[in-house]
């Protein structure tokens, strides 16, 4: 193809790139202009590339390179190790290396999009890890985790780039933390083995703890400790439930396994179901965070450095919502179904409304954004609790949306903090006069955050509200929930616009604000991809929804059948195993082979070793280590 043809074909991207390149006025380094142009052109290109083509979905089952996910997880973790060998004096090398690793990670993760996201698992990779306990390295993506992985790899370089602007001390340690965190978060999104998930879940806590503890604000230690203890409390509950579940599975089948697919088939006795559901869910609710376990979040955000806040808000919180969707709803559909209306009530009153009202009264911009996160994630959780295909799609989309909008907000708050070293709203006022571009960007991101149509925030909220009203799980509450959630839309405007008014508009009175410089080229490059994504998501959401809808439909169907089965099946005393044909074969692909016996005959009492008639076949390297399973 001649260069001329290329120009013809990609004129839109080219034009967009050129426009973005010449957009900034005044002295603006050529390097940054090129970067801006490239970012814009590539965004347009990717929209073109991902544009849904009718009927082309089923053809071409491209080869899935099984190691892709290993590379995605491994690269940042190995990179983190690699950083340790770079002398700390070579600042630009350390930074450059980190950015390259994270950037390459993003590029590699784009390969996930080359495969049509049919129901079931993709890029699955399974390897025994601790065979005596049936623990495996089992990673895979589906249409739901796909977008969260891309969000992670997308936010990672931006957060790192933003951090390097403001953090000048102990850069090497910072890079180590960023890379390790990135690897752990990616791992948590793709792990399908509960034990593996738990490892990543805990692993990502450490770098975040360190990041807040070292580069944080005045009360950094307290905030870091609070974050750690809160999360840890949940983790311990989850671990206990996880072990109980695996042990039950072992009792029923004779094989130890922590595999999500295998454990999905276990139906616990009714009280145990409820206990395990809460143990898992409390861990996730703390992470989300949901009322009333949300108070660690504002503290952590206020104290965290900009980069940490971005990652925390944009990605880490999503692990809680994602894990609720994947694990709580997948493993315990019974309680998730019967508690749906109550939990949705908490999400609305405690999240959407309470979060918004408290956000309104905050004096610190970062605290305000933190509480707005509580409100936004209330929407996400509402979408999940309602369990409708529309609601779940909206919730997943809203996770991505929140990552982008709130990430951008924290980035922008960081900009002003770097200049004034304060975030108190009362310290500002009228700075639109001295920082017009910054103001324009902030107002734009604000509107995305409060969900004005055309920006990303609206699509998710709209789908969640529509899903809520049509939800069966919420039953008679669906109407009142819809009204409550919609009322949150009003409050979002109240708190965000009040803050915008007090910070940017009105007379410029504070003398320190008179000399503020507008957004710098470097900051502009950092924020550009987020701003572009705001519009891409808002205007072309079907790019995202098309790739997740099959997976969501599968998750929804499975939830519907399994929750029905679980309610029918469960009794007060004994755990049971669902027959494999309850699940779609696409879901069970790669499950450890424990499903050969026909009737799930109720096994005898606890502790009995006599169950082992259920001869487990040895597949995928699972060692049926009977008798000596201790």
């Amino acid at each position, binding site marked *: 193809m001649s260069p001329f043809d290329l120009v013809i074909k990609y004129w839109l991207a080219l034009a967009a790139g050129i426009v973005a390149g010449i957009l900034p006025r005044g002295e603006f380094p050529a390097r940054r202009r090129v970067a801006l142009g490239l970012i814009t052109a590539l965004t347009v290109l990717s929209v073109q590339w991902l544009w849904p083509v009718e009927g082309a979905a089923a053809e071409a089952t491209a080869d899935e390179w099984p190691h892709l996910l290993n590379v995605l997880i491994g690269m940042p973790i190995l990179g983190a190790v690699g950083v340790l060998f770079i002398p700390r004096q070579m600042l630009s090398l350390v930074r450059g290396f980190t950015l390259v690793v994270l950037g390459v990670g993003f590029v590699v993760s784009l390969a996930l999009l080359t495969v049509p996201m049919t129901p079931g698992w993709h890029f699955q990779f399974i390897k025994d890890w601790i065979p005596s306990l049936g623990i495996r390295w089992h990673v895979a993506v589906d249409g739901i985790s796909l977008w969260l992985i891309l969000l992670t790899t997308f936010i990672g370089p931006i957060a790192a780039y933003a951090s390097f602007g403001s953090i000048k001390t102990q850069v090497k340690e910072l890079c180590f933390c960023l890379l390790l965190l990135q690897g752990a978060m990616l791992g948590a999104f793709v792990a399908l083995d509960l034990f593996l998930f738990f490892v990543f879940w805990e692993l990502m806590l450490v770098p975040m703890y360190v990041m807040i503890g070292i580069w944080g604000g005045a009360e950094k230690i307290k905030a870091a400790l609070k974050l750690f203890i809160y999360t840890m409390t949940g983790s311990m509950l989850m671990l206990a439930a996880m072990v109980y579940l695996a042990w039950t599975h072992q009792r029923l089948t004779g094989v130890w396994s922590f595999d999500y697919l295998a454990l999905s088939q276990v139906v616990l006795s009714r009280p145990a179901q409820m206990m395990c559901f809460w143990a898992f869910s409390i861990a996730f609710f703390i992470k989300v965070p949901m009322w009333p376990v949300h108070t660690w979040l504002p503290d952590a955000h206020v104290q965290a450095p900009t980069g940490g806040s971005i990652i925390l808000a944009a990605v880490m919180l999503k692990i809680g919502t994602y894990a609720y969707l994947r694990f709580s709803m997948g493993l315990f559909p019974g309680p998730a179904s019967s508690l749906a209306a109550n939990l949705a009530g908490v999400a609305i009153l405690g999240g959407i409304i309470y979060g918004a009202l*408290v956000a309104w009264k*905050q004096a610190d911009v970062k605290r305000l954004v933190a509480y707005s996160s509580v409100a936004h994630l209330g929407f996400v959780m509402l979408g999940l609790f309602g369990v409708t295909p529309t609601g779940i799609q909206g919730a997943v989309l809203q996770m991505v949306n929140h990552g982008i909008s709130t990430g951008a907000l924290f980035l922008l708050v960081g900009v002003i903090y770097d200049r004034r070293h304060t975030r108190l709203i009362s310290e500002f006022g009228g700075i639109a006069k001295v920082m017009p571009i910054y103001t324009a960007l902030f107002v734009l991101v604000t509107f995305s955050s409060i969900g004005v149509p055309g920006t990303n925030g609206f699509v998710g909220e709209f789908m969640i509200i529509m899903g809520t009203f049509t939800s069966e799980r919420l039953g008679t509450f669906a109407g009142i929930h819809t009204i409550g959630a919609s009322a949150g839309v009003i409050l979002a405007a109240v708190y965000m*616009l009040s803050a915008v008014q007090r910070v940017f508009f009105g007379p410029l009175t504070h003398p320190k604000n008179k000399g503020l410089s507008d957004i710098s080229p470097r900051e502009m490059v950092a924020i550009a991809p987020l701003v572009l994504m705001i519009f891409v998501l808002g205007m072309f959401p079907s790019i995202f929804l098309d790739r997740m809808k099959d997976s969501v439909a599968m998750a929804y169907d499975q939830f519907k059948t399994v929750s029905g089965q679980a309610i029918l099946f469960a009794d007060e005393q004994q755990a049971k195993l669902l027959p494999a044909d309850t699940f779609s074969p696409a879901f069970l692909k790669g499950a450890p082979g424990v499903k050969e016996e026909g009737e799930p005959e109720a096994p005898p009492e606890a502790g009995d070793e006599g169950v082992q008639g259920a001869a487990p076949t040895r597949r995928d390297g699972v060692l049926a280590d009977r008798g000596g399973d201790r």
Partner: protein
Amino acid sequence: MEALRTLFPASDFTLLAAILALPALGALVNGLFGKRLGKEGVRLMALAALGGSFLASVLTYLLLPAEGKLTWTAWRWISIQGRMGQSIPIDVAFSVDALSGTMMLVITGVGFLIHLYSSEYMKNDPGFHRFFAYLNLFCFAMLTLVMGDNLAMLFVGWEGVGLCSYLLIGFWYGEDKNAAAGKKAFIVNRIGDFGLLVAMALIVYYVGTLRFDGIQSGASSLLQNVKIWPIGNMSSGTLPGFLHFLLPEQPVTILAATAVGLMVFLGCAGKSAQIPLYIWLPDAMAGPTPVSALIHAATMVTAGVYLVARLSAVFVLSPAALAVVAVTGALTALLAATIGLFQNDLKKVLAYSTVSQLGYMFIGVGVGAFAAGFFHVFTHAFFKACLFLGAGSVIHAIHVRIHDTDRSQDMGNMGGLKAYMPITRWTYLIACFAIAGLPILGSGFWSKDEILWKAFTVDIMAVSAPGVSQWMWPSWLGRAIYWAGVTGAVFTSFYMFRSYFRTFHGEFRGWKIDPTWKDPGHGHGHDDHGHDDHHEEHGEITGPVPHESPLPMTIPLMVLAAFSIGAGFLVAEPIHVAPLAHKLEPVFALSSRAIRQREGTEGLLFPMMLPGIAAFLAGTVGAMVVYQNRRGEPERRFATMFPRLHRLIYDKWRIDELYDATVVGMVDALADIFTIADKWIVDGILAKFTAALVGFFGTVLRAFQTGRVQVYAAAMVLGLVGVGWFMVKPHADATVNDEALRRSGEVKLSAAPGLGYSYRWDTPGVSETTFAKTTEHTVKLDPGETKDVTLRVRNAWGSESSETFTLTRPAGGRRGATEPGALPAPQPPTLPTGTIPAERIPDLIQPKGLQ
């Protein structure tokens, strides 16, 4: 024409893309590159964008088919699932019929004139490019609103215009007042948007589509009852007793159509400034005057009327919703008109007049006269835009010397301008005649009287459906609305002519005119809104001769004034000159079936115009007498005679204060409570309290770790004493084995062993006297029998302890004895093999407490 029809087929009418894309492009270019383009470039871009869009709209209008629509689908936006699991696609799709086509003409046509006007009015503003970017963006959003093919696309435009309105009201953001007004507008609009969101959810649920075509054809599925109270799972079982008064005998239900209608109308009330959400519009006058003309008079605020007309198929199903719309409209028309009577700020007068006129439009659509309501939108766009632009022209002239925004709009500083600004004066007068309803010539006469006539004669048929009872309009309601409208019309013509006479007649009160006066040096333009003004000397100031505005400002005035007269003849139903009405007929053909003319009113068409004409005359002549002949003396007299009433009306009935004290105050207090609770209760219990608890235990336990041998020894002794005491005290306990209870009535009890224990079993009737070492004891029960068995334990020291077990053997069937009515069929007398359900055993055998 035919060539165009083939070029743009009705189902893929790509011309719509051009209509939308041009303003969007203008906004983008002006917003991003405005500063570099320079003012001329920005003006050219903005005007070309709107002009092109206008021409394309005209073309579209000409190509409109008699029936059906022109549609264009851009791309698939989202797809959601309905109640039945059916897929509901929501596309970025646009369509045009006569209703939206007319709106498009108004938006782009009036929009173009106002762009032209602004290019002069805003000439010296440093935010020139920003202003035109917003204005173009607004036109884009407004076009999206009217052209959207489904409710979701309409909502995109709906919020988009709200956003632009926010940006434009707060355009001079340097003053807190303006920024606050913008915020208020946005938030109040959001309250309306909340209603629209809920309405969309209801429509998705009941109708299963958001396309307007689909809603129209599927509207009958809204004829179902919706339970609105009690909410959730409220019932006598779940509520505490003292709240039972909340539970009605019968669940309160309303028709789904009514619910949708009311929720949609909440949205319309927000956007179109109706009671109770009208409070933002007068504040919105903080924006530049052309903005007030375009957004807050001609186009955006009429979006609510457009929406009701668009969803007419839903509204006609519910007489109750229509009644709410019409009554709200009438009340708003009256209330706003009274407030307009005493305002001194020229723009405020026009703002309240807009609110009041919007009320008339809602009367129109509320009595089912959708076409009539829409005609008023159409005529109002011209004369109100003309009035606002005229006011802007006056303010522009006053602004030469008085830079303070509020004072330059005060009618106290105007007067006598007819000599200096003839074009402005004449166009303003024509528009005043139009709004006041000068018979035949004023376009407001035709549209307003049509509305009032329809209100007078309305008779709404309830569409019936099985199991649904409809609320019906009482016969007096239509007539009451008619008379309210006529009363409002008196006020309208009075306050309009009051503003006219105070502005253009009498003495000029702004400053002392000195023809040789020169602006002392610094090029003071419009850019200093918000700056402290340094030439505001108190007392008498001098200034130049007030000047007529330049051509780019007067041309729009003249065009709009011409339309203020001419538009009436597009809609003059009574004299059968109504081309627009014929164009619109098919749009409302279906909906109008439920609307009848009341019997006995056939010949009253012309007689019933007389009250309207009388109202016009009364208001006009009254204003002329008061303000022209007597220089406002009666108003001052009124103010001294009823100072409090005058003050109350001047303060807008203090509705804002009422809201602040109630709704806003409550939410504010709630937020304060939550914030405090969050800090001290939620965080207090979960974080601070647990931390304190852990700390407390740490402190307590640390106290034991003293390292002194005496302490440890004392602890050891204490422990030993405890163990010893446990040994000395006997513990009676037994395990009950009732496997054979059903079969043979035998229950085996085995006592728990202990050091040196001996046991005695006391059963009623059989009483052992001695303690023995046997731990086992068997009791035999007859069916239905209950026995108390007491175990006595004595230990080596002779202390005793006892425990009583109550054993019951059920008689025959499982529940037969206790719940005779529970099972209809008699149970066989005995059950096969020990099948007592596991959960019932604990009920049968209960320990009766320890001794």
